[in-house]
């Protein structure tokens, strides 16, 4: 009888206890000691694209580290498309679940960020610039760390890694002198080698990036790309791009009637000997592929001398995240020199760092310099100029236009 | 407790069974303890339906009327599990997942509660039909005659008030059939149980030695 009464009392009190937790003071990155204290014993559901085993392994390592250092448990929710996490947060908002959301941290950039920012689905105000490791970020030389596809990040997401469009080829099959040096060259290459080039089908991220690369090279006034689309001139602005594609498509792999699914699909086809030139957003991909036995060791990298697209990827926190403090701790750890160096190591991931190496302490600087990037990877100074990403509007519209024009191959 | 205490017999009172508006059979009879009533008839005459009705498991597509009582107590409408009627089919239907002893324990009336006594009674029942030492045997390894004897003992241990036999000898070869018939009829007589036997074999009817009822329009083809 007594136990029963205790049980009832507890059952009645339990929601009260819960709601007390719910109204606890707002998480503030500026008060870092408090963040660390709140974060202990929290579980962070990190929604991140899960299509790459080495990246998953890296996230697992980061999770183990923050677990042992700060008592934060990290669970990676592996997505096949980042937009799914956005969908989840939206579904929660539509159901009125404004706290205790199921997503704590999202690996994000570009149009997903723009959409979440526009819908007010992100934790705000500015938290990223208050992270202790923010001071190390290379904001001067990498403007993309604060402008995500031209959209100001306003501290609503924290940079995680840099990306640059890089091409790969097999020197056993293709001579270096035959390599194209611009989008126009690439068309000539395709004419000389029909069926040996393709790009992932938009809206795949890499495929759409290829369209943006071509557009950036061909558009009459590149400045327009930094602003939202002007409907009046859009047709004329993109005309060179689609004229180019109209010529290119019959020369593509499968005559443009099918496209590779994504980068790993292209990588496989380079290995199979179906494609001669492929490209990725990660300069170390070729070396990593060789190390994994997925690519022959004769694969090498190149870029266009006038520049290729470069951007930054970030982590963001949903407005209704359940473990905001834990998410902040993880975001800050991902920015630490130690985590960034591991990320740049091609044996582990191979993604260029977002930190300004010269701002780092001596010890970390030497360690970065000592990283062996592998024979197939270009050195940072060989990567050439980085072209800025167009405003996200362009990507959405070009994708739609692309599907309208090429969505039904005959 | 002796299985099957004395009764003044099984009363079948104007029992009629129909299917789709057609009457298959009408029957009134009294079967005294130890007596055998043999019901004969061609297939489709309703023999099996009669048996099912008496046993309490008639398919609802049949319509049935009449009264069944034993020792003055009415059995009409009583569920099968409360009728205490022992059934023997042409197949012994020993439960394949239980041992021989397990089958008999399954049959043995729950009124005997003590484990050791239940075991003793089952062992004795096996001895009675010359199957001593068969307690742990797999029923699948028994011969046809042995199975038939186990099936009989399983029914007898359940303390039935009457027996219903559905062509129980038709699958046995002639020597065995003779033995099994004798065993079953003498066991029933000794226990004082009224027996209803359904068969199409006239030799069964002769061996039973009781009244013979022929149902269905035609008596021979």
């Amino acid at each position, binding site marked *: 009888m007594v136990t029963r009464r205790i049980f009832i009392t507890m059952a009645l009190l339990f929601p009260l206890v819960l709601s007390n937790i719910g109204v606890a003071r707002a998480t503030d990155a500026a008060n870092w000691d408090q963040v660390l204290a709140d974060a202990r014993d929290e579980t962070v*559901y990190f929604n991140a*694209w*899960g*299509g790459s*085993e080495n990246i998953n*392994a890296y996230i*697992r390592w980061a999770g183990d580290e923050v677990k042992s250092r700060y008592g934060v448990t990290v669970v990676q*929710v*592996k*997505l*096949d498309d980042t*937009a*799914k996490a*956005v*969908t989840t947060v*939206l579904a929660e908002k*539509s159901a009125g679940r404004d706290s205790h959301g199921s997503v704590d941290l999202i690996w994000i950039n570009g149009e997903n960020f723009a959409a*979440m920012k526009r*819908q007010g689905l992100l934790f705000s105000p500015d938290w990223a610039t208050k992270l202790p490791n923010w001071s190390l970020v290379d904001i001067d030389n990498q403007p993309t760390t604060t402008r995500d596809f031209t959209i100001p990040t306003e501290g609503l997401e924290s940079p995680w890694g840099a990306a640059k469009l890089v091409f790969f080829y097999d020197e056993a099959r293709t001579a270096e002198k035959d390599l194209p040096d611009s989008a126009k060259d690439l068309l000539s290459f395709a004419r000389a080698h029909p*069926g040996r080039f393709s790009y992932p*089908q938009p*809206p795949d991220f890499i495929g759409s990036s290829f369209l943006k690369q071509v557009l950036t090279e061909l558009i009459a006034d590149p400045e327009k790309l930094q602003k939202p689309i002007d409907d009046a001139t859009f047709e004329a602005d993109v005309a060179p791009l689609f004229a180019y594609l109209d010529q290119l498509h019959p020369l593509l*792999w*499968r005559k443009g009637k099918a*496209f590779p*699914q*994504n980068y*790993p699909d292209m*990588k*496989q086809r380079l*290995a*199979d*000997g*179906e494609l001669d030139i492929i490209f990725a957003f990660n300069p170390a991909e070729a070396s990593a592929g060789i190390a994994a*036995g*997925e*690519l*022959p060791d004769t694969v090498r990298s190149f870029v266009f001398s006038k520049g290729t697209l470069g951007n930054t990827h970030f982590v963001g926190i949903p407005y209704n995240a359940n473990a905001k403090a834990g998410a902040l701790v993880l975001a800050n750890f991902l920015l630490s020199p130690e985590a960034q160096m591991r990320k740049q190591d091609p044996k582990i991931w191979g993604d260029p760092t977002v930190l300004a190496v010269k701002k780092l302490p001596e010890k970390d600087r030497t360690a970065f310099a000592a990283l062996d990037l592998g024979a197939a990877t270009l050195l940072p100074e060989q990567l050439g100029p980085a072209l800025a990403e167009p405003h996200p509007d362009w990507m959405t519209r070009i994708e739609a236009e692309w599907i309208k024009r090429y*969505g*039904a*191959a005959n | 407790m002796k299985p099957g205490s004395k009764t003044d017999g099984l009363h079948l009172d104007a029992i009629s069974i129909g299917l789709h508006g057609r009457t298959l059979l009408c029957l009134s009879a009294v079967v005294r303890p130890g007596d055998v009533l043999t019901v004969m008839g061609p297939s489709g005459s309703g023999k099996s339906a009669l048996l099912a009705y008496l046993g309490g498991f008639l398919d609802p597509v049949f319509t049935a009327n009449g009264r069944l009582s034993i020792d003055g107590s009415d059995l009409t409408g009583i*569920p099968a*599990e409360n009728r*205490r009627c*022992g*059934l023997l089919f042409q*197949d012994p*239907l020993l*439960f*394949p*997942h239980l*041992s021989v002893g397990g089958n008999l324990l*399954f049959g043995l009336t*729950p009124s005997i509660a003590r484990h050791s006594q239940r075991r003793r009674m089952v062992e004795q029942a096996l001895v009675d039909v010359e199957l001593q030492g068969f307690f742990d045997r*797999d*029923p*699948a390894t028994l011969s046809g005659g042995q199975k038939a004897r186990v099936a009989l003992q399983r*029914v007898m241990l*359940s303390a*039935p008030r009457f027996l219903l036999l559905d062509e129980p000898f038709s699958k046995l070869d002639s020597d065995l059939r003779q033995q099994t018939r004798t065993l079953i009829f003498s066991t029933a007589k000794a226990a004082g149980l009224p027996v209803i036997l359904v068969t199409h074999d006239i030799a069964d009817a002769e061996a039973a030695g009781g009244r013979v009822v022929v149902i269905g329009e035609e008596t021979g083809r």
Partner: protein
Amino acid sequence: MTRRFVVSGFVLALVSLPVLAGLAGTIGPAFGYLPAIGGNSFTFEHFATLAAQPHLMRSSMVSLTAGIVATSVSLIMVMLFTAGYAGTRMFSRIQHMVSPLLAVPHAAAAFGLAFLVAPSGLAMRLVSPGLTGYTSPPDWLVPQDPLGLTMIIGLVAKEMPFLFLVTLAALPQVPLAQTRHMTANLGYGRIRGFLIASWPLLYRQIRLPVFAVLAYASSVVDMAMILGPALPAPLPVRLTQWMADSDLRMRFLASAGALLQLVLTMAAMAFWLIAERAGAFVLKRMSGSGIRQPDDRTIRRIACAAMAVSAAFVFLGLLVLFMWSVAGLWPFPSLLPHYITLQPWMRAFPQAVAPVVTTITLAGASATAALLLAIGLLWQDDLRAGDALRFVLYLPLIVPQLCFVFGLQILGLALGLEASFLLLIFVHLIFVLPYVVLSLSQPWQAFDRRYETVAAGLGKSPLQILLRVRLPMLTRACLTAFAVGFAVSAGLYLPTLLIGAGRMVTITTEAVALSAGGDRRTIGVYTLLQTLVPFIGFLIASLVPHLLFRDRRAMRI
């Protein structure tokens, strides 16, 4: 009577409510109602947007025709094979070959097929460069051919085993042998005799499963993604993309699209109903014509070969998946990898343990619950009592998953239901139950009821009879039904993803997520794991009776 009502009423509500509620959750946004992103008014605007989508017609037609063709081909194969071989040794040989295919997940079968028939696949390597002279793969559009033929082959290879097994389950209810003797005496060939005399009876028994196959094939996502055309992709694939689009306003479009998918599947069913009439008419003409067609060996052999080849496709596909999972560098046209490495397995193993455990727990729980419910239903003879219940049981299989699972997710959130394990088990149960009932009902009905009569005569109550006679004797059938349910649960993708909110990671959601990476080695490892897990269920189903009834000869057959 009241007892009967309890279980069937419970099942009725359990299955139909989530489907109907999910549909409502999809229909609302389609007509503009989704307050969270400013949808407060009733509008047809989203259907106009849908209609304006480029190449929508072609996407829809590809799905529709692939669904109808794949279902027809699977059914005709099963029909002709059963006609030609039922009761022969070849029949049981093919049966043993085909049955395990049921446990192979759709995604695994599709990847296997793709790795087999692609220009750089095993088939081409076998004949290159020797016969073809190719040193690099030819530039052929396979898979992803515009007509969806590869996708149809994949669907047939996966749906044929299902239809074959439901046919097997229905066979005992048709007096096949007697009918064959009769038609043979009249001079009819095996196939023609079967089609005229037995098929109509048999078809009536398997009609609901055929509609389930039709619904599945016309709305399939994972197989279409892997094998189907890409330009444009079949409607369900585009639908899934819209549902996941980062532009949140696309949710309205996605909901309108889901309704279109529903209409499409209903159109496929309407077509099928007409085809049934036509088939009946043809059969009538066939039987009226008096033509005997006594020599049908050619058709029989073709039917048998088609069954064997489609099964072989799946097995060879699994073999290729295995080869890729241990392959080092493996360039075209090498028939074998240059070296073998366990690295893909070693790398995957630490990550795969948790999903495998989740899968086994989830599948074990939902299959157990489904088995208990199925036993309850069958015990009370509910299924014989009403066709309505049978239909309701099939509802989650006949309404395309895409059309109601998403709405269900919104609803679950609106009710404040956490993405809990219990909720996920419940949703899995909806999909698992029909398969378990289907698997168990045939042996249940074939059970010799005289055992129960004997037991009742021995004074045992119905419950005692169930627990001490029927269930022990049906141990093997129950375990098999459990294994079937286990396999179904383990292979569920969309419901697990949406209801589990990405937090309940099963080996299947993991496999599909990783396949987005397109790395053949990782795909090989995960699809094999995904195939192995259900096989454990079947292994248990075949081993346990041996252990349990070691001394009971009759129970081991």
